[in-house]
């Protein structure tokens, strides 16, 4: 028994402390070092922040270069799929285009009317746009984030909205000097206040870690209201981060799980360029 314990201790000691051939550090030293880095990382010392930013600048650029072949394969895969469904897609698009032309006319009128009404109540919505390229788009199974090539140098700040055309995609969570990281709406940690239209119900859309979100924290029971209707999810503007009315997605009612899934308008796997927007909602009253 004692001999067995001795063998165990010897094996553990040898594994952790012995520096084998071509090893500059023992395992124990490096484990301690990573532990120290984890602890130091949770403090906001300026020196540590600068070191972190420096490492991130280098790693993001390297990751972009290394990802070029994989991104090429990804694009090729998408192109082949698109090519195979080309004819069917064309027919669908033709019908949709005619439908949209009709809707655009009434939409233009609504925009003009909306602007006039805003002028009447002296409300202004000013926005600053920065166009950014998606450097790294890691569809990681754990965290859904993208890295953009604009940072504090371009006045990007934490909390700014990320939009793809006019659809909301996410928000900035980390800013470095020349790049930044955005948390996508599909991430488990993403929660945004929304408005369900046309039923006019306020809710929160939470990410699921998959390619859809779920509706949470509604004040009223809305299950009956959405039956048989096409529900569009817009930002409600609560919290002041995003302006109200940014399209997020549509609701797919899932009766089996008794939860409402939100299908996002934007395909987060195909983001090449996005717009970083900050809104300044003011009233002259």
């Amino acid at each position, binding site marked *: 028994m004692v001999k067995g314990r001795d*063998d165990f201790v*010897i*094996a*553990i000691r*040898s*594994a*952790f402390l012995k520096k*084998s*051939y*071509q*090893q*500059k*550090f*023992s*395992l124990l030293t*490096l*484990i301690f*070092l*990573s*532990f*120290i*880095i*984890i602890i130091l*990382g*949770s403090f906001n010392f300026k020196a540590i922040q600068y070191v*972190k930013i420096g*490492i*991130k600048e280098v*790693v*993001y650029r*390297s*990751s972009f270069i*290394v*990802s070029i072949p*994989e991104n090429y*394969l*990804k694009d090729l*895969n998408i192109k082949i799929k698109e090519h195979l469904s080309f004819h069917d897609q064309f027919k669908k698009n033709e019908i949709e285009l005619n439908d949209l032309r009709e809707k655009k006319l009434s939409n233009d009128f609504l925009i003009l009317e909306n602007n006039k009404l805003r002028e009447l109540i002296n409300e202004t919505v000013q926005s600053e746009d920065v166009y950014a390229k998606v450097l*790294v788009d*890691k*569809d*990681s*199974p*754990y*965290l859904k*984030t993208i890295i953009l090539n604009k940072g504090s140098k371009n006045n990007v700040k934490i909390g700014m909205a990320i939009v793809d055309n006019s659809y909301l995609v996410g928000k900035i969570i*980390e800013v470095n000097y020349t790049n930044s*990281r955005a948390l996508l709406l599909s991430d*488990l*940690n993403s929660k945004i206040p929304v408005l369900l239209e046309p039923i006019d119900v306020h809710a929160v859309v939470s990410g*699921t*870690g*998959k390619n859809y979100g779920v509706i949470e924290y509604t004040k009223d029971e809305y299950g009956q209201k959405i039956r048989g209707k096409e529900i569009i999810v817009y930002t409600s503007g609560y919290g002041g981060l995003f302006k109200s009315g940014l399209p997020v997605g549509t609701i797919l009612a899932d009766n089996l799980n008794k939860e409402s899934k939100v299908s996002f308008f934007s395909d987060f*796997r195909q983001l090449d360029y996005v717009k970083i927007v900050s809104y300044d909602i003011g009233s002259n009253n």
Partner: protein
Amino acid sequence: MSSLNKNTLIKSLLFYLPIFLLFLSVLNEIDFNYLEIEYFSFNFAYILIFYWTLKNPRYLNYGSIFLAGLVNDVVVGLPMGVSSFCYLLICSVTAYLRNITITPNFINDWISLLFTILVVNSIQVISLDFIFSIEVNYMRYLINSGFTFIFYPIFLFLFNILEKKIKIQKND
């Protein structure tokens, strides 16, 4: 003379191939996510580190593994040091296994890998969820561990071929 130089170059390239693959996998996250198979993902870095440090840590030194972990944290967006810690835990298990094993056995190694990735992923999930308050999908971690375990024999086969080539080059 030129053939001698060529031989030395191939020898060094093959010797550093595991390190190159490790950094490539952490910078690029080789996970075939673009195949759009829901839930499909595996941790190539875990397999690579487990295999090469179990075989011989000369091919993949601990310092490089530590650095690769830091790079992985930056790319994935995890708090810095978490991946390095997890990778080094795998190295600890393989170092222990190397010390207690006289005759390597594939089944033993395979089961040890399952045990190791379950422990390492549990530590990662616990630290992210409870210490850093980053919500993670437990099911995804579990499935990722499952696929990593299933894919080990395939990569074992490929890495065995590579290791033989490295040994042959070394003996030349």
